[in-house]
Protein backbone atom coordinates (compact mmCIF):
# COMPACT_ATOMS: atom_id res chain seq x y z
CA UNK A 1 0.00 0.00 0.00
CA UNK A 2 2.88 2.36 1.00
CA UNK A 3 4.69 1.62 -2.29
CA UNK A 4 1.61 2.58 -4.27
CA UNK A 5 1.30 5.78 -2.24
CA UNK A 6 4.97 6.65 -2.88
CA UNK A 7 4.58 5.97 -6.60
CA UNK A 8 1.55 8.23 -6.70
CA UNK A 9 3.54 10.92 -4.90
CA UNK A 10 6.44 10.61 -7.36
CA UNK A 11 4.15 10.79 -10.39
CA UNK A 12 2.41 13.78 -8.81
CA UNK A 13 5.73 15.52 -8.13
CA UNK A 14 6.92 14.95 -11.67
CA UNK A 15 3.61 16.06 -13.15
CA UNK A 16 3.66 19.15 -10.96
CA UNK A 17 7.11 19.96 -12.32
CA UNK A 18 5.99 19.31 -15.90
CA UNK A 19 2.73 21.19 -15.68
CA UNK A 20 3.11 23.89 -13.09
CA UNK A 21 6.77 24.38 -12.50
CA UNK A 22 6.08 26.31 -9.33
CA UNK A 23 9.52 26.05 -7.82
CA UNK A 24 11.29 28.50 -5.62
CA UNK A 25 14.79 27.18 -6.37
CA UNK A 26 16.92 29.87 -8.05
CA UNK A 27 17.30 29.38 -11.77
CA UNK A 28 20.61 27.58 -11.81
CA UNK A 29 22.00 27.05 -15.30
CA UNK A 30 23.82 23.91 -14.25
CA UNK A 31 21.09 21.81 -12.73
CA UNK A 32 21.89 19.23 -10.13
CA UNK A 33 20.62 16.73 -12.65
CA UNK A 34 23.58 17.63 -14.79
CA UNK A 35 26.06 17.61 -11.96
CA UNK A 36 25.57 13.99 -10.89
CA UNK A 37 23.89 14.77 -7.55
CA UNK A 38 21.85 12.01 -5.95
CA UNK A 39 18.18 12.32 -6.99
CA UNK A 40 15.41 12.86 -4.45
CA UNK A 41 12.93 10.65 -6.36
CA UNK A 42 13.39 8.09 -9.12
CA UNK A 43 10.75 6.66 -11.38
CA UNK A 44 10.88 3.76 -13.83
CA UNK A 45 8.65 3.30 -16.88
CA UNK A 46 7.28 6.81 -16.57
CA UNK A 47 4.21 7.55 -18.72
CA UNK A 48 2.61 10.97 -18.80
CA UNK A 49 -0.33 12.23 -20.86
CA UNK A 50 -0.80 15.97 -21.36
CA UNK A 51 -4.37 17.03 -22.14
CA UNK A 52 -5.79 20.39 -23.20
CA UNK A 53 -8.47 22.44 -21.49
CA UNK A 54 -11.18 20.19 -22.95
CA UNK A 55 -9.48 17.01 -21.80
CA UNK A 56 -8.28 16.09 -25.28
CA UNK A 57 -4.87 14.37 -25.35
CA UNK A 58 -2.14 16.71 -26.65
CA UNK A 59 1.15 15.07 -25.80
CA UNK A 60 2.16 11.67 -24.48
CA UNK A 61 5.59 11.34 -22.88
CA UNK A 62 7.28 8.16 -21.79
CA UNK A 63 10.69 7.57 -20.27
CA UNK A 64 12.38 4.41 -19.15
CA UNK A 65 13.72 6.21 -16.09
CA UNK A 66 13.35 9.62 -14.46
CA UNK A 67 15.30 11.18 -11.61
CA UNK A 68 14.00 14.23 -9.79
CA UNK A 69 16.38 16.45 -7.80
CA UNK A 70 16.18 18.79 -4.82
CA UNK A 71 16.76 21.89 -6.95
CA UNK A 72 13.70 21.02 -9.03
CA UNK A 73 15.62 19.76 -12.03
CA UNK A 74 15.06 16.35 -13.52
CA UNK A 75 16.83 13.92 -15.82
CA UNK A 76 15.00 11.42 -18.02
CA UNK A 77 16.38 8.48 -19.95
CA UNK A 78 15.15 6.77 -23.15
CA UNK A 79 12.47 9.26 -23.93
CA UNK A 80 9.66 9.19 -26.46
CA UNK A 81 7.32 12.12 -26.93
CA UNK A 82 4.24 11.79 -29.16
CA UNK A 83 2.19 14.73 -30.41
CA UNK A 84 -1.46 13.66 -30.48
CA UNK A 85 -3.37 16.73 -31.62
CA UNK A 86 -3.77 18.56 -34.90
CA UNK A 87 -3.90 17.59 -38.56
CA UNK A 88 -0.26 16.58 -38.75
CA UNK A 89 -0.57 14.27 -35.70
CA UNK A 90 0.82 11.97 -34.70
CA UNK A 91 4.40 13.06 -34.61
CA UNK A 92 7.02 11.56 -32.39
CA UNK A 93 10.45 12.44 -31.04
CA UNK A 94 12.97 10.08 -29.48
CA UNK A 95 16.08 10.82 -27.49
CA UNK A 96 18.36 8.82 -25.20
CA UNK A 97 18.44 11.54 -22.55
CA UNK A 98 16.51 14.63 -21.48
CA UNK A 99 17.04 17.35 -18.93
CA UNK A 100 14.64 19.72 -17.22
CA UNK A 101 16.64 22.74 -16.00
CA UNK A 102 15.84 24.26 -12.60
CA UNK A 103 12.63 26.27 -12.54
CA UNK A 104 11.79 25.49 -16.17
CA UNK A 105 8.75 23.89 -17.78
CA UNK A 106 10.73 22.67 -20.75
CA UNK A 107 12.32 19.34 -21.37
CA UNK A 108 15.51 19.45 -23.38
CA UNK A 109 15.91 16.31 -25.48
CA UNK A 110 19.58 15.67 -26.11
CA UNK A 111 21.46 14.20 -29.06
CA UNK A 112 20.77 12.25 -31.08
CA UNK A 113 17.18 13.42 -31.37
CA UNK A 114 15.23 11.64 -34.10
CA UNK A 115 11.66 12.24 -35.08
CA UNK A 116 8.87 11.14 -37.38
CA UNK A 117 6.03 13.36 -38.45
CA UNK A 118 4.31 14.93 -41.44
CA UNK A 119 4.51 18.19 -43.29
CA UNK A 120 1.29 20.15 -42.81
CA UNK A 121 0.15 18.83 -46.21
CA UNK A 122 0.47 15.28 -44.93
CA UNK A 123 3.72 14.09 -46.50
CA UNK A 124 5.60 11.89 -43.99
CA UNK A 125 8.94 13.30 -42.86
CA UNK A 126 11.96 12.33 -40.75
CA UNK A 127 13.63 14.84 -38.49
CA UNK A 128 17.07 14.76 -36.89
CA UNK A 129 18.57 17.30 -34.54
CA UNK A 130 21.17 17.53 -31.83
CA UNK A 131 18.74 19.08 -29.37
CA UNK A 132 15.00 19.75 -29.18
CA UNK A 133 13.01 21.48 -26.47
CA UNK A 134 9.55 20.29 -25.55
CA UNK A 135 8.01 23.45 -24.11
CA UNK A 136 4.93 22.49 -22.14
CA UNK A 137 4.13 26.04 -21.11
CA UNK A 138 3.92 27.36 -24.69
CA UNK A 139 2.91 23.98 -26.13
CA UNK A 140 5.71 24.11 -28.70
CA UNK A 141 8.60 21.97 -29.78
CA UNK A 142 11.63 23.98 -30.88
CA UNK A 143 15.34 23.95 -31.26
CA UNK A 144 18.03 26.61 -31.42
CA UNK A 145 20.33 24.00 -32.92
CA UNK A 146 20.53 22.86 -36.57
CA UNK A 147 17.84 20.50 -37.76
CA UNK A 148 17.51 18.34 -40.87
CA UNK A 149 14.18 17.23 -42.30
CA UNK A 150 13.87 14.61 -45.00
CA UNK A 151 10.83 13.50 -46.98
CA UNK A 152 10.12 12.12 -50.43
CA UNK A 153 9.47 15.33 -52.29
CA UNK A 154 11.40 17.86 -50.20
CA UNK A 155 14.21 18.08 -47.71
CA UNK A 156 15.35 20.95 -45.54
CA UNK A 157 18.16 22.03 -43.32
CA UNK A 158 17.73 24.95 -40.94
CA UNK A 159 19.66 26.61 -38.17
CA UNK A 160 16.68 26.39 -35.85
CA UNK A 161 12.99 25.46 -35.94
CA UNK A 162 9.79 25.86 -33.99
CA UNK A 163 6.33 24.28 -34.24
CA UNK A 164 3.27 24.13 -32.01
CA UNK A 165 2.32 20.77 -30.47
CA UNK A 166 -0.49 20.47 -33.05
CA UNK A 167 2.05 21.07 -35.87
CA UNK A 168 -0.38 23.44 -37.58
CA UNK A 169 2.56 25.58 -38.65
CA UNK A 170 6.30 25.11 -38.89
CA UNK A 171 8.93 27.83 -38.68
CA UNK A 172 12.43 27.16 -40.06
CA UNK A 173 15.19 29.77 -39.68
CA UNK A 174 18.15 30.21 -42.02
CA UNK A 175 16.53 27.58 -44.13
CA UNK A 176 17.59 25.74 -47.25
CA UNK A 177 14.74 23.74 -48.76
CA UNK A 178 15.20 21.42 -51.73
CA UNK A 179 12.12 20.43 -53.70
CA UNK A 180 12.45 17.42 -56.01
CA UNK A 181 9.36 18.50 -57.91
CA UNK A 182 8.13 17.12 -61.11
CA UNK A 183 5.75 19.18 -63.22
Amino acid at each position, binding site marked *: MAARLLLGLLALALSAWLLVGDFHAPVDPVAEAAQGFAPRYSLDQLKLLRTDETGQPVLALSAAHADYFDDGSAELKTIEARGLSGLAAPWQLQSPRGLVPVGEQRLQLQAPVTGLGRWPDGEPLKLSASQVWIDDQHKRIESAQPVAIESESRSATARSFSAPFNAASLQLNSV*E*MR*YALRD
Partner: protein
Amino acid sequence: QSPVRPSGPITITAKSGEWQDGVMIYSGDVLMKSKTLELRGARLELRQPGGNRAPYEITLTGEPASLLHASETPAELPVEARASRIVYRSANQDVELSGSARLLRGKDEINGEKVRYNVPSRRVQADGGDAGQVRIVIDVPEEGAAISPPKPDKSSPAPQP
Protein backbone atom coordinates in the same frame (compact mmCIF):
# COMPACT_ATOMS: atom_id res chain seq x y z
CA GLN B 1 10.99 17.25 -72.30
CA SER B 2 12.80 20.43 -73.37
CA PRO B 3 16.22 20.84 -71.79
CA VAL B 4 15.35 24.43 -70.99
CA ARG B 5 12.39 23.40 -68.92
CA PRO B 6 13.38 23.96 -65.31
CA SER B 7 11.51 21.01 -63.88
CA GLY B 8 13.39 18.85 -61.50
CA PRO B 9 14.88 19.91 -58.15
CA ILE B 10 14.66 23.48 -57.00
CA THR B 11 16.46 24.88 -53.97
CA ILE B 12 15.17 27.77 -51.93
CA THR B 13 17.24 29.52 -49.29
CA ALA B 14 15.99 32.31 -47.04
CA LYS B 15 16.35 33.82 -43.60
CA SER B 16 13.20 32.06 -42.59
CA GLY B 17 10.57 29.75 -43.94
CA GLU B 18 7.19 29.19 -42.38
CA TRP B 19 4.44 26.82 -43.31
CA GLN B 20 1.07 28.52 -42.85
CA ASP B 21 -2.32 27.37 -44.10
CA GLY B 22 -0.97 25.25 -46.91
CA VAL B 23 1.52 27.85 -48.14
CA MET B 24 5.26 27.78 -47.54
CA ILE B 25 6.34 31.40 -47.02
CA TYR B 26 9.99 32.27 -47.29
CA SER B 27 11.24 35.68 -46.24
CA GLY B 28 14.51 37.56 -46.04
CA ASP B 29 17.17 37.31 -48.83
CA VAL B 30 15.15 34.73 -50.70
CA LEU B 31 16.89 32.87 -53.49
CA MET B 32 15.26 30.16 -55.59
CA LYS B 33 17.48 28.21 -57.96
CA SER B 34 16.56 25.53 -60.44
CA LYS B 35 18.56 24.18 -63.34
CA THR B 36 18.10 27.27 -65.47
CA LEU B 37 16.15 29.76 -63.42
CA GLU B 38 17.19 31.98 -60.55
CA LEU B 39 14.69 34.09 -58.67
CA ARG B 40 15.64 36.60 -55.97
CA GLY B 41 13.40 38.69 -53.74
CA ALA B 42 12.29 39.63 -50.26
CA ARG B 43 9.40 37.20 -49.92
CA LEU B 44 8.44 34.04 -51.75
CA GLU B 45 5.23 32.07 -51.38
CA LEU B 46 5.17 28.54 -52.73
CA ARG B 47 1.78 26.89 -53.29
CA GLN B 48 1.10 23.33 -54.34
CA PRO B 49 -2.66 23.07 -54.30
CA GLY B 50 -2.53 19.58 -55.76
CA GLY B 51 -0.21 18.23 -53.08
CA ASN B 52 3.52 17.72 -52.84
CA ARG B 53 3.83 15.89 -56.18
CA ALA B 54 1.82 18.49 -58.14
CA PRO B 55 3.02 21.56 -60.10
CA TYR B 56 3.75 24.57 -57.97
CA GLU B 57 3.13 28.26 -58.15
CA ILE B 58 5.65 30.74 -56.82
CA THR B 59 4.80 34.36 -55.98
CA LEU B 60 7.86 36.45 -55.39
CA THR B 61 7.86 40.07 -54.25
CA GLY B 62 10.68 42.48 -53.65
CA GLU B 63 12.01 45.93 -54.38
CA PRO B 64 12.54 44.65 -56.94
CA ALA B 65 12.10 40.94 -57.34
CA SER B 66 14.39 39.62 -60.05
CA LEU B 67 14.68 36.71 -62.44
CA LEU B 68 17.63 35.36 -64.37
CA HIS B 69 17.08 32.74 -67.04
CA ALA B 70 20.43 31.39 -68.07
CA SER B 71 21.15 30.58 -71.70
CA GLU B 72 21.43 26.94 -72.61
CA THR B 73 23.20 27.29 -75.94
CA PRO B 74 25.72 29.80 -77.29
CA ALA B 75 23.04 31.15 -79.62
CA GLU B 76 20.81 32.11 -76.74
CA LEU B 77 21.24 35.25 -74.66
CA PRO B 78 20.45 35.13 -70.93
CA VAL B 79 17.23 36.86 -69.97
CA GLU B 80 17.11 39.16 -66.96
CA ALA B 81 13.92 40.63 -65.58
CA ARG B 82 12.82 42.79 -62.70
CA ALA B 83 9.46 43.75 -61.28
CA SER B 84 7.84 44.32 -57.92
CA ARG B 85 5.97 41.02 -58.32
CA ILE B 86 6.90 37.85 -60.18
CA VAL B 87 4.58 34.85 -60.45
CA TYR B 88 6.01 31.63 -61.82
CA ARG B 89 3.81 28.61 -62.64
CA SER B 90 5.77 25.41 -63.14
CA ALA B 91 2.96 23.64 -65.02
CA ASN B 92 3.37 25.78 -68.13
CA GLN B 93 6.66 27.49 -67.23
CA ASP B 94 5.03 30.91 -67.51
CA VAL B 95 6.47 33.89 -65.66
CA GLU B 96 4.29 36.94 -65.06
CA LEU B 97 6.10 40.12 -64.08
CA SER B 98 3.99 43.00 -62.80
CA GLY B 99 4.69 46.39 -61.33
CA SER B 100 7.35 48.38 -63.25
CA ALA B 101 8.27 45.27 -65.16
CA ARG B 102 11.49 45.31 -67.12
CA LEU B 103 13.00 42.53 -69.20
CA LEU B 104 16.43 42.56 -70.77
CA ARG B 105 17.91 40.20 -73.32
CA GLY B 106 21.30 41.30 -74.53
CA LYS B 107 20.75 44.94 -75.55
CA ASP B 108 17.05 44.48 -76.15
CA GLU B 109 14.79 45.83 -73.45
CA ILE B 110 11.06 45.74 -72.76
CA ASN B 111 9.34 47.85 -70.12
CA GLY B 112 5.67 47.67 -69.25
CA GLU B 113 3.20 47.35 -66.43
CA LYS B 114 2.93 43.63 -67.08
CA VAL B 115 5.34 41.42 -69.01
CA ARG B 116 4.79 37.75 -69.60
CA TYR B 117 7.69 35.44 -70.36
CA ASN B 118 7.54 31.77 -71.25
CA VAL B 119 10.66 30.01 -70.10
CA PRO B 120 10.90 27.07 -72.55
CA SER B 121 10.12 29.13 -75.66
CA ARG B 122 11.81 32.29 -74.35
CA ARG B 123 8.88 34.20 -75.83
CA VAL B 124 7.85 37.59 -74.40
CA GLN B 125 4.51 39.39 -74.26
CA ALA B 126 4.16 42.88 -72.84
CA ASP B 127 1.07 44.74 -71.64
CA GLY B 128 0.97 48.45 -70.84
CA GLY B 129 -1.79 48.03 -68.28
CA ASP B 130 -3.98 51.09 -67.54
CA ALA B 131 -1.08 53.41 -68.22
CA GLY B 132 -1.21 51.98 -71.80
CA GLN B 133 2.52 52.24 -72.20
CA VAL B 134 4.88 49.50 -73.42
CA ARG B 135 8.39 50.59 -74.35
CA ILE B 136 10.50 48.28 -76.44
CA VAL B 137 14.10 48.99 -77.32
CA ILE B 138 15.51 46.66 -79.96
CA ASP B 139 19.19 46.73 -80.67
CA VAL B 140 19.29 46.95 -84.48
CA PRO B 141 22.61 45.78 -85.92
CA GLU B 142 24.78 48.44 -87.78
CA GLU B 143 24.19 48.90 -91.55
CA GLY B 144 25.92 46.17 -93.56
CA ALA B 145 26.31 43.96 -90.50
CA ALA B 146 25.31 40.35 -91.12
CA ILE B 147 21.68 39.84 -90.10
CA SER B 148 20.80 36.31 -89.07
CA PRO B 149 17.43 35.23 -90.47
CA PRO B 150 14.67 35.56 -87.83
CA LYS B 151 13.41 32.30 -86.27
CA PRO B 152 10.17 31.01 -87.85
CA ASP B 153 7.28 32.58 -85.85
CA LYS B 154 4.83 29.72 -85.22
CA SER B 155 2.53 31.23 -82.61
CA SER B 156 0.58 34.48 -81.91
CA PRO B 157 2.25 37.71 -83.08
CA ALA B 158 4.03 38.41 -79.84
CA PRO B 159 6.63 41.17 -80.13
CA GLN B 160 9.97 39.62 -81.16
CA PRO B 161 12.85 41.55 -79.55
